[in-house]
């Protein structure tokens, strides 16, 4: 049975900076700290309007990729942040480029609730014992994982969900917009069902739909796939014409968007596509990765995937189709704007991750060798 690692709480009227993250607690019901929902204006010569005071935030997940960045932003904002994970990965890891001081500060404040979110009874009991104000659901895949959370927190102020642009129905009319048809049969239908559940419950929810996420610590081999080949001086095999258009969004911009919807009336029951402002062709992405990492322009080989049997292996990390979404709604409604353009973002990823010798998956050029070996090259 997953253990309840709870937290000492002090009632404080404003920002709460909790001293210890891992002190055990013997299961007594925690009461949430006092919240000042709205602060009165404090004029200090200039206009100063401060946010609603710190929230008691639960992140489902938070130790792998998006949540690593999001949790830092939230802690810096002065919120009390708890990560709900099974504890398989370290609760905190120092980010490349993060100072020891910042890391120590963050580690001292972040809280951990150890458990398996598939254990619905535990989720319900542990969450209702703590009474969070806001839940960020970063790793939820199925609607049944969400119901116990909602049941446990009837006074929840906001449920913020990491969905996916993968829910959109494939179309010849692009970009995808939040009002477009969704595909109930897609691989991501669990995300759709979760969004529907949120809509049907009386909860203030917000859903963000990223496209392909990239950045340091990415565990999906998106940019890493290109970097492995560039480093090895290998050609980049790209299926079909290479003019398929995709879209990458930097994880830090996504984290910023997650923060920006917190307590934001404009985000109430709204879906937002979050990704880069510009899209990119497959061929263009190969070139952008090379440029960002300081490699020479790559040799691109086009091939017809139908002429090969790759077995269970993926020969290319993207869907072989156009796939991109408009982020206009987030820009107009939230005033959100990505900080990273593609080359700058890829450089950030390279400089903080792959370029330092770290990556998640070993290079596997077996499918490349099949392609190159057959010497079947499509004319552009």
């Amino acid at each position, binding site marked *: 049975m997953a253990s309840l690692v709870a937290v000492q709480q002090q009632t404080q009227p404003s920002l709460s900076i909790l001293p210890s993250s891992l002190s055990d607690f013997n299961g007594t019901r925690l009461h949430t700290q006092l919240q000042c929902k709205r602060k009165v204006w404090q004029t200090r010569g200039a206009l100063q309007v*401060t946010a609603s005071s710190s929230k008691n935030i639960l992140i489902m997940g938070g130790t792998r990729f998006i949540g690593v960045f999001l949790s830092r932003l939230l802690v810096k904002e002065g919120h009390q942040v708890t990560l709900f994970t099974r504890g398989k990965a370290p609760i905190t890891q120092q980010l490349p480029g993060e100072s020891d001081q910042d890391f120590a500060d963050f580690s001292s404040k972040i809280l951990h609730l150890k458990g398996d979110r598939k254990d619905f009874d535990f989720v319900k009991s542990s969450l209702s014992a703590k009474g969070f104000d806001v839940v960020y659901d970063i790793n939820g895949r199925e609607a049944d994982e969400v119901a116990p959370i909602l049941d446990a927190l009837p006074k929840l102020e906001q449920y913020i969900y990491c969905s996916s642009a993968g829910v959109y129905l494939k179309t010849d009319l692009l970009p995808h917009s939040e009002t477009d048809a969704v595909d109930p049969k897609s691989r991501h239908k669990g995300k759709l069902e979760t969004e529907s559940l949120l809509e049907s419950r009386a909860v203030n929810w917000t859903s963000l739909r990223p496209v392909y996420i990239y950045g340091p610590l990415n565990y999906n081999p998106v940019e890493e796939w290109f970097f492995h080949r560039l480093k090895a001086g290998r050609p980049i095999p790209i299926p079909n014409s290479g003019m398929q258009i995709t879209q990458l969004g930097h994880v830090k911009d996504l984290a910023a968007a997650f923060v920006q919807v917190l307590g934001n009336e404009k985000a109430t029951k709204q879906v937002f596509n979050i990704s880069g402002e510009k899209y990119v062709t497959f061929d*263009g992405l190969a070139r952008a990765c090379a440029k960002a990492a300081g490699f020479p322009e790559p040799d691109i080989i086009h091939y017809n995937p139908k002429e090969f049997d790759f077995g269970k292996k993926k020969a290319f990390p993207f869907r072989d189709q156009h796939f991109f979404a408009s982020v206009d709604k987030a820009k107009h409604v939230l005033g959100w704007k990505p900080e990273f353009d593609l080359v700058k973002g890829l450089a950030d990823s390279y400089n903080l991750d792959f370029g330092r010798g770290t990556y998640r998956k070993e290079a596997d050029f077996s499918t490349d060798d099949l392609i190159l070996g057959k010497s079947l090259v499509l004319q552009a």
Partner: protein
Amino acid sequence: MATIASSFSTLIFSSLHSKLSPPSLLSSPHTSLSSSSSSSSQSSLFSSFLSISPTSLTYPTCSRRLSASTFTVKASAAEKKKVLIVNTNSGGHAVIGFYFAKELLGSGHEVTIMTVGEQNSDKMKKPPFSRFSEIVSAGGRAVWGDPAEVGKAVEGATFDVVLDNNGKDLDTVRPVADWSKSAGVKQFLFISSAGIYVPTDEPPHVEGDAVKASAGHVGVEKYIAEIFNSWAVFRPQYMIGSGNNKDCEEWFFDRIVRKRPVPIPGSGMQLTNIAHVRDLSSMLTLAVENPEAANGKIFNCVSDRAVTLDGMAKLCAQAAGLPVEIVHYDPKAVGIDARKAFPFRNMHFYAEPRSAKDILGWHATTNLPEDLKERFDEYVKIGRDKKPIQFEIDDKILEFLKVPVAV
């Protein structure tokens, strides 16, 4: 959409907090501002805002600019303007002036449309010119003349706004611009082209992206910016709409109704932007009615969705209720000029109308699946489905590909 309250609170912020700039497309610098990060809650002066202090973070978060959606719709919307449209006498852009004239007249503005050339020329027998009576009966004035002698054509009339929907280079537009300036025209608008964007790995083309320095339109855009205090430039792509002077969807219908294969160069995945001309007209009208907002801006004059070339063929077929057979070919291998064989560029040619949405609060209404049904109905109504057509280039392509054609 903007509200009066939004603009009011914007004014308050501007006066009290010098770091804030008026709503614009540019991000404010990432300094530590304690004011609102966005449009949230600007409607009420006493609601709270999300305050983020970026300076202590090691990486930047969201931009601190005021929301671009809080544009102010000023009283000039109610002001009626006298507008002169200098219109081309042929080609894909001709229909823009036709719709724009009618929309302005519908909104109560005064319109003169000056078409280049002679009233009795053969070109005037084709749409939209053949339908100019619609402009006249709506209260507009139609004249003909030489862009080098606009004053003569309009017989001394004065205008608040001039749209040049004719010239592709400085030689053709300069006389119109110069005359407008000397005649006291307040706002000058120019139909340029999204074709001037430099091809990119990172679509879409957005306003501000690099353009081909040698393009004639670029010279015009620069000149206008130099001599006018109030100007705006519009860069369109392709259009559909009743009264079009140039074939667009008809090219697909011609083949689909005759059960001929549709030859598309390359992969068919090329994205393009095909807008209903009413969207271009509404954008232009917003610029006329919001000159301060539009001033000094470039607008991609396109709908908010791109379509693949294959997709366009499929949508045309769906609109016609008929099947379609698409064949792809390599123009070089066949030995033909793709520009003669096919009405769209054989590459991604894809711009998005971001400035119009950000700055003018414009929205696209183009709905290709629906709009193409209406277009097909008209195609049949005028009997074009029965018209005998030669498909010489198609036949050459199909022969090369050894694709049979049912007779």
